[in-house]
């Protein structure tokens, strides 16, 4: 089977400072996959590159064997919760319906079917009773569940979620995890960015350990060895980060032109 996500030699940087070096790995379909690493290790950056939200310096990514634009309707992305404005004038239903918006349609209208899909998504995350509540009046865990409902409403095959368990209490975390497992059992691929080592091993079938570079990627029990964990969570690779700073300062190209095709 073609991998759900196929990452080739990805290097990505902010303002010329590389934060991901030569990432090369594959995520299988139909699994619950964790991207795990300490703060600032580039997990969010990796998701952004997968979703085409930033341009990599080199390397490329295939999703279900295709370029993103061809399969975009099969992919759903849940950003980190703090990145959006929760004081926006909208209620829970409005936000979930955004999952049904179509960028190709001008004067887009919401159909009866869209509404039904949104209602179903809300009930799957147990938030139906809050459908008409303003989003600023939700707790962190509830906001997270609204985001997941919006993602469900997209009816995708591949889900990418950035830290869905942050600021969520234990009961909601269980509920969300059950939902994700159920999605997996229905053949969906779910990729979760996660920074808690304690739970990562229990939650995920496949784990990518990240710390600016890819430390390991594979079945959970293969990746969770003390050596690899030490490598990911232990001291930073000082040479690598110093090179990054040098590149930023001197305006060096990270890749020389004409060297690589994608």
């Amino acid at each position: 089977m073609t991998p759900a996500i196929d990452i080739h030699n990805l290097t990505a940087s902010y303002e010329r400072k590389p934060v991901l070096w030569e990432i090369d790995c594959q995520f299988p379909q139909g699994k619950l996959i964790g991207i795990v690493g300490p703060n600032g290790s580039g997990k969010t950056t990796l998701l952004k590159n997968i979703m085409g939200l930033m341009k990599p310096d080199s390397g490329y990514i295939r999703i279900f064997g295709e370029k993103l634009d061809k399969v975009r309707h099969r992919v759903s992305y849940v950003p980190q919760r703090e990145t959006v404005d929760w004081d926006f004038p909208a209620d829970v239903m409005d936000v979930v319906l955004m999952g049904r918006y179509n960028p190709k349609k001008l004067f887009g209208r919401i159909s009866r079917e869209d509404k039904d899909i949104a209602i179903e998504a809300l009930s799957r995350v147990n938030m139906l009773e809050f459908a008409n509540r303003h989003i600023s009046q939700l707790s962190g865990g509830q906001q997270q569940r609204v985001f997941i409902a919006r993602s469900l409403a997209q009816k995708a095959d591949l889900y990418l979620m950035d830290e869905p368990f942050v600021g969520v209490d234990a009961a909601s975390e269980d509920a969300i995890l059950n939902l994700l497992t159920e999605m997996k059992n229905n053949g969906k691929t779910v990729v979760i960015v996660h920074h808690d080592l304690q739970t990562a091993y229990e939650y995920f079938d496949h784990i990518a350990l990240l710390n600016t570079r890819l430390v390991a990627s594979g079945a959970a029990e293969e990746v969770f060895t003390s050596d690899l964990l030490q490598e990911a969570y232990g001291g930073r690779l000082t040479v690598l980060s110093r090179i990054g700073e040098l590149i930023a300062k001197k305006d060096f190209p990270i890749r020389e032109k004409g060297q690589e095709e994608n």
Partner: protein
Amino acid sequence: MYALWNTLGLDEPNMRWVLFGTAFLSAVSAWVGTFTYLQKKSLLGDAIAHGILPGVAGSFLLSGQKNAAYIMIGALVWGFLTVLAIEWITRKSHLKPSTAMAIVLSAFFGLGMMLLTQIQNSGLPDASGLQSFLFGQAASLLPSDILVYSIFALVALIVLLALYRSLTFVSFDKAGAQSMGFSPQTSGTVLSILVVIATAIGIQSIGLILMAALLITPAAIARMWSQRLWTMLMLAGGIAAVSAISGSLISFSGKSMPTGPWIVMVLFFIFGFSVLFSTHRGLVQRAFQKRKNRQIIQRENLLKALYHLREQKGEQAEFTFEEIQKKRMFSENDLQRILGMLKRKKWVLQGKNGWTLSGEGLNEGRRITRLHRLWELYLSQKMRLKEDHIHPIAESMEHIITEDLEAQLLHELDYPELDPHQKRIPYDTPAKS
């Protein structure tokens, strides 16, 4: 009434045209402004409004006449130049957009003023009216001008409707929208173009300098009364139209008074009113709530004091003013007032020798006392706080605990009999034994 109608010139169809035209133009500006408000780009309108002055003056210099169509063309061209200049500076330097805006705004406006002075010294026949571009002069609008501006406004409105969802989604969650194939760059550019149009159409009715108020203030006001985008847009449009009409009317009544300042004053009046009275965090409502809370607290404290006195002195006793004051420090005025209030509610009765609780007052006093003691017990048992720390906390919590919470407390503490100070916890019906 009819006389007023006449003095304002409203019997003339021209005047009505102007009035309703301005209302429509203002509403469109406010709708566009709502989206800049949501994208936190409020300053953009101000920058563009000032930046288009050279275009307006230039169109006059080239054509030699005051013609709405030429003015629009000049304004649009310089509006885009302003946007491009801001973007270019932000991209090429490390300056923040707001800094770039301030720089471009003042430079372009300065250039515009130089051109304007040039025109005024040139002695061209129409030149005297040019000041009206700065502060607006609705009375000088011709129906043909209104028509030109309205066509542009209509175009802006259609674009807004076409991209409604895209603009909304990008304003709320840029990354999420982009991941679904919406383009933040495109909607950003379109919004900038819309702001240019929304600003240019108000040149003659409000004037450049105050135009930003019409873009932002209605949106800010509407946000105070509404929690959803759709109602917010309706309100913002309505507010803009109403203030445009009333501002224009006031300015018509005075001799050659500029319109812009009046419209802005009306807007500011509505804004001030909303800050005070809005249902969504309005100051008056909040003050009201605070006052109500204080009253509840005082009332409950008095009932509790009476209940305590009754516990000490027996059921038949009546308590004098001084006895109550000794039990709990109330100022004389406060005590008088609260007793009066409770008497009207029939929660306390005034007997020959003083005050006593009625049946209902007794229940209430018992409830407060119970909550206080339950909470103390909860704090010391479950949170392991020391006994001398728990009283002040319970003093404030007793007024907040709801029935649900009380039930839960009772359940968790298993219907206790005594509080940590060994005082009996009173129940309406005898406690489970």
